[in-house]
């Protein structure tokens, strides 16, 4: 029996097992990485979605809180009998960030609540001297950006 025969008497060549193991490990690694990637992308998507929902309802709650304050002011001012004259002053004194526009028989209150860096909640509520409060707009929209900062850096034809 020469040296080679002494070293291998199984009938199977050396290296087959190693090749199979390497193949199996590569296959398993690929599947594991794909599985993890699919699971974490799904998880990331849901977490972002959950975070957005929290941000939206935080803005929604803030807007409702402002609406409650405005409604309270409107009620107090209405009791004085000088709604048209005093509502604007009372709002500007007590609430910041609310713009009032005159409408027939009352005021239209307009304000925004920031949802995140890209979105805002736009709210418009009409208050009338008759004591009505009507929500005209309760809508999400993109944050209005300064056009000088947001323009694309393309050539405008001038030198």
């Amino acid at each position, binding site marked *: 029996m020469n040296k080679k025969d002494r*070293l291998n008497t199984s009938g199977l060549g050396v290296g087959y097992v190693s090749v199979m193991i390497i193949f199996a490990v590569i296959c398993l690694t690929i599947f594991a990485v794909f*599985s993890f990637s699919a699971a974490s992308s*799904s998880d990331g998507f849901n977490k972002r979605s*959950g975070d957005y929902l929290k941000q939206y309802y935080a803005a929604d709650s803030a807007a409702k809180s402002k609406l409650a304050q405005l*409604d309270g002011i409107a009620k107090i001012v209405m009791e004085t009998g000088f709604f048209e004259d005093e509502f604007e002053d009372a709002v500007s004194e007590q609430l910041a960030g609310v713009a009032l526009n005159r409408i027939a028989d009352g005021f239209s209150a307009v304000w925004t609540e920031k949802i995140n860096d890209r979105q805002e909640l736009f709210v418009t509520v009409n208050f009338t001297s008759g004591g009505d409060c009507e929500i005209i707009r309760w809508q999400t929209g993109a944050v209005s950006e300064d056009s000088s900062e947001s323009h694309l850096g393309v050539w405008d034809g001038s030198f």
Partner: protein
Amino acid sequence: MSALKAFGGGKRRPINLFFAEIIIALLFFSISGAVIIKVFATADMKSQQSARLERVIILAQSIAEAYSDSGNFSRAAELAFGGGLVVGEPAADGGEVTLSIENGSMYLTARESREFTGAGEISSLTLTFTANGEEIYSLDCSAYIRNGGEPDE
């Protein structure tokens, strides 16, 4: 060599490379397999958690939207769960209610607080979804109900 001789009872035995290779390969496979199985287990767990979070987010949105409209948690829960769920006692006046959902695998705890403003009532609701004692997701929402300044008695 003396050890080999001892194995062979003093007779010279050939070294079997096949067995030597298979042992080394198995050692390598067991180490890499342990790591790979851990990755699989994590991926599977993440996938299940993600599917659960997905359902919870949709449910939370439904309850929050219905609550924002009515300011009534019982009604909101009934609408969101499709009327099959009977909410025993509404979580009114700073109360708390816990519901068992998804066949008892999860719990929804709702905490509600109400504040009377000059012209109405603003109520806040905190929804907390838990499973195995661990918080999955929580959401705060609110409702403003005008009632002419007269608190609900």
